[in-house]
């Protein structure tokens, strides 16, 4: 059990789960907290790591006044027990046996299940080409920045492209903007290659990106989405 900060407002919890059955990249767990008076609150969190015995990593974004995330990112201490149900979800998953190229498009904390896929690709020895487009507000808001830099260099067949929506790094070649046709065309795959597309982020982000991919010619059945709502507090 351990915890590490990813950004000033996001924290990864490393949990040791006895009898964990293993999981697929993209699956999530439901975390339930119970107060002394019996009041319970439950939220879903994507699993961040590739399957690794009983080890489970969750990256939690602190939502202001979010009753579960404020506990997990602030009050929670290493060693405190948490109640977990899962792994659950079979739709937004990627399996290392899949032969098709993959496009991952993440917005903010929506990177978490996509990171599990990137990690599972390497762990499973897959050579399927992956492209990640990661939309963040500013350079400080990106999760897993060091690891993504290293993997983009060392994991053969992985491309990583950032889109900054509010403030870009110094000397960045373009002004802040949202993920649109240009980014999806430049850093994504042509629809003719029939990639599997995974889009995860806030509802508006997911709607826009998925609609744009379909408009560019991608098969809607191959565009899988997962929305992180502000209800995820």
């Amino acid at each position, binding site marked *: 059990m351990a915890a590490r900060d990813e950004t000033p407002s996001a924290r990864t919890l490393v949990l040791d789960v006895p009898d964990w059955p293993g999981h697929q990249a993209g699956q999530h767990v439901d975390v339930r907290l119970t107060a002394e008076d019996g009041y319970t609150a439950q939220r879903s969190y994507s699993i961040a790591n590739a399957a690794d015995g009983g080890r489970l990593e969750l990256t939690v974004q602190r939502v202001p*006044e979010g009753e579960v995330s404020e506990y997990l990112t602030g009050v929670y201490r290493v060693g405190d027990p948490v109640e977990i149900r899962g792994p659950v979800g079979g739709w937004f998953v990627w399996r290392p046996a899949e032969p098709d190229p993959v496009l991952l498009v993440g917005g903010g904390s929506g990177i978490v299940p996509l990171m599990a896929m990137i990690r599972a690709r390497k762990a499973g020895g897959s050579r399927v080409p992956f492209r990640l487009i990661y939309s963040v507000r500013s350079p400080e808001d990106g999760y897993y920045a060091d690891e993504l830099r290293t993997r983009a260099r060392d994991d053969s067949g992985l491309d990583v492209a950032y889109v900054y929506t509010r403030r870009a790094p110094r000397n960045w070649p373009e002004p802040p903007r949202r993920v649109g046709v240009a980014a999806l065309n430049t850093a994504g795959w042509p629809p003719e290659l029939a990639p599997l597309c995974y889009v995860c982020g806030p*509802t508006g982000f997911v709607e826009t990106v998925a609609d744009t991919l379909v408009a560019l010619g991608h098969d809607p059945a191959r565009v899988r989405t997962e*929305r992180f709502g502000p209800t995820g507090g």
Partner: protein
Amino acid sequence: MTGERIDDYLDGNDLAGPLAELFAVDVTVATGRCASCGLAGPVAMLRVYPHAPGLVARCPGCEEVMLRLVRTPDRAYLDLRGMLTLAIPLPA
């Protein structure tokens, strides 16, 4: 939880945990057909509104209610009247 907008929604992926309590298979990968407009697609792609006293899942095409799930301490109420059919993949 303050500051939520009621028009925000999640998706059927979030039904996986609550439905796993009731069913032996993962229902979110099943194909549901909307009783209102006939659109068919994975349950994972429904629009889920968690603000009600329960979970309300609507058709992404016509926004009619397809599934409602309310959990009490000792019972679950599942309303599927908006779901014409549910095609559940099973191992051959």
